[in-house]
């Protein structure tokens, strides 16, 4: 039972990885910087209905967690490092994101 499960999981992950990896190369890329507990830019404009790659760089001396309940993402950003987050494709609209470790730090993603 356990072995069948693990095999199934491995197959799904591998299959998805191969197919998704092939598409990753030609994906629009955007940058966000966390500095002095502010997102720069505070409003990020991205194309709607397109999968995008967002690079989040943390220039603070402490860890942060890039998170959004609106587009369902959460990922820790260590000090002086950059993470990659794949987002979308999103419908047209505005989506909030925040630093889960410093809730006052927020930003907006605008898909248009």
């Amino acid at each position: 039972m356990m072995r069948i499960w693990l095999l199934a999981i491995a197959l799904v992950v591998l299959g998805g990885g191969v197919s998704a990896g092939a598409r990753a190369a030609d994906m629009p890329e955007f940058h966000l910087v966390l500095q002095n507990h502010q997102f720069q830019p505070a409003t990020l404009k991205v194309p709607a209905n397109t999968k995008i790659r967002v690079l989040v760089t943390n220039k603070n001396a402490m860890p942060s967690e890039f998170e959004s309940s609106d587009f369902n993402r959460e990922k820790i950003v260590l000090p002086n490092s950059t993470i990659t987050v794949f987002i979308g494709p999103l419908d047209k609209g505005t989506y909030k994101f925040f630093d889960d470790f410093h809730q006052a730090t927020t930003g907006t993603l605008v898909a248009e």
Partner: protein
Amino acid sequence: MLGIALLVFREVLEAALIITVVAAATRGVPRRGVFVGGGIALGVIGAIVVAVGMGFIEGSLGGIGQEVFQAAVLLTAVVMIGWHVTWMSSHGKEMVQQMKQVTDSVKAGSSSITILLAVVALAVLREGSEIVLFLYGMAAGGAGKMGFFAGVPLGLAGGVALGFALYFGLLRIPIRYFFSATNWMLVVLASGLASTAAGFLIQANLLPAWGNQLWDTSRLLTNGSIVGQAVHILTGYEARPAGMQLVFWIATFVILVAGMRLVAWRQAASHARARRRRGQAAPRTASEAAGTT
């Protein structure tokens, strides 16, 4: 201080709810407290190791190490819960019978409880590593001692208290239905964890989303609220789920229920065979007994 208390509370709550369901599901098993306590202790150590090694985890696998790690932890827990519930469907009845007789002399459950120890450890590891990183950041940012000495215990106590509240709520379920209730809770919990794992694999671009947002119930219950978060942990609730998450949820649910049914059916079949054998043997011994007297 309140910021610290709130974050610690939310992370502790997530682990506490999982521990509560596991603790309820292993009710009556001897030395259960040792296992649950051991799982928590292992989880705390693991959380510190993961927090310290987060740079390595993040850097590995070309920048998607965090997502793969989270998904691996979640899916491991799913497999372990799956193992436990299928095991329970053949042993659950014995556990209830034994509990009805003498509560403190139950022998069943020792193999499966080791697996649930790991589930507890993984839950604590996952949420705990976030607390460690957060507190490290707070310390580095010069948060006052007051914030730590009041905030951390306050958040911890709040999360643990809610866990206990759920536990004593569950204890009110009549013993006849108790293990089937906790088993169903485990099945739903595991389905939710699988769906969360799918979310991380989508985030890492390893899985297609199959519909980025199937529906939006965030007006009814957001995942950002405490209630939304508790429901998310217990059932995998997402206000805006991706199609693939729903697929993972349903697939896990169907596989676990089918596994439970299959094991229970086999168990019933082997019991019936054993009864037939005993049935044939009984009259002979009776006539032998009659012949000798």
